[in-house]
């Protein structure tokens, strides 16, 4: 038998990597005031780390969020704000 390359049998196992540690500058604050549950932040997030279930419930998983700012950019209600990493949520 020759090795045929790496076989990975754990779908989605990249979740082991907590890429939230990459964030250096800003993080998103989900204000949960004017949210209409349009789902646009969920769709756009390159990390796939936003969850929500109904209006004013959307939130990022900071273990993975890289602070790109795209959720805040697409939010039609301006209900996500990019704040300094050190600031309290």
């Amino acid at each position, binding site marked *: 038998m020759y090795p045929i390359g790496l076989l990975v049998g754990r779908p989605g196992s990249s979740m082991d990597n907590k890429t939230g540690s990459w964030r250096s500058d800003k993080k998103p604050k989900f204000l949960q005031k004017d949210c209409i549950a349009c789902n646009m932040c969920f769709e*756009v997030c390159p990390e796939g780390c936003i969850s929500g279930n109904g209006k004013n419930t959307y939130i990022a998983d900071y273990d993975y969020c890289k602070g790109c700012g795209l959720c805040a950019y697409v939010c039609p209600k301006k209900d996500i704000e990019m704040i300094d990493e050190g600031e309290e949520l």
Partner: protein
Amino acid sequence: MAVVADPKQNLFASGHTACAGCGQAIAAKIVATVSGKKTVIANATGCLEVFTTKAPQTAWRVAWVHSLFENAAAVASGVEAAMRYLGKIDEVNVIAQGGDGGTADIGMGSLSGMLERGHDILYVCYDNEAYMNTGIQRSGLTPLDSNTTTSPVGKRSRGNPRPKKPLLEIAVAHNISYAASASVAFLPDLKKKVEKALSYKGPKFLQVHVPCPLGWRHDSSLTIEIAKLAVETGLYPLVEYEYGKLISVRKIKVKPVEEYLKLQGRFRHVLKDEEALNQVREVAKANIERYGLAL
């Protein structure tokens, strides 16, 4: 009833190692998720392969295979033939995917073979307009005048001297059932096109414009804005073809190309060079005329 936004429904998991704001990550997440669990993806070498499969982990929640830079379409062809042999081709979506270099340059022959042989496969090209994973070298899909490490701007050079290769038209020339261009700036449209493509039998092709904050030199929060401006200036027409015939065009209220260029470091020199600027305007004008883009 409200939609439930559940990250577990994405067939592309968190924890991958793409740069913050990577357009390709957004598009790949959508493509995999729309295709569904019964999907097999053959991926060419490139950022998407590297950032989703940091060994021994994977971001994919579908079957996924990587072999080489040049052969994603050939590997997918083998997967498709195997599915057909097993009588499973009607229940499984086979996808081949790669970057612009992997598709329009090094993988061109294998892509053409896949299209010509009539395999039931969707090929997706994530067009970030250069070889990003190895440090921003120009590809056949790098736009005119773009500053890359192999088309550097200097006294005797205004960046990449060639316009983009007409990749979509090359795919269309194979008389395939469906071929379209899409953009991360228009996600409902991208979803619709993936769904539609998968509803056709035989080979189909999708080219998706995906800004790369690192290579295009823009802030990570501008990925969507920039992709949108590419469409709205006429520089990236969103069109659909069915069996060689143009069936739809996204109409635009035309904006000046400067609005697109000024947000990106790779075009900074163009704004100070009237001749270069005119060249880019000509590219947009030709697209607008060719596809009747103007509203």
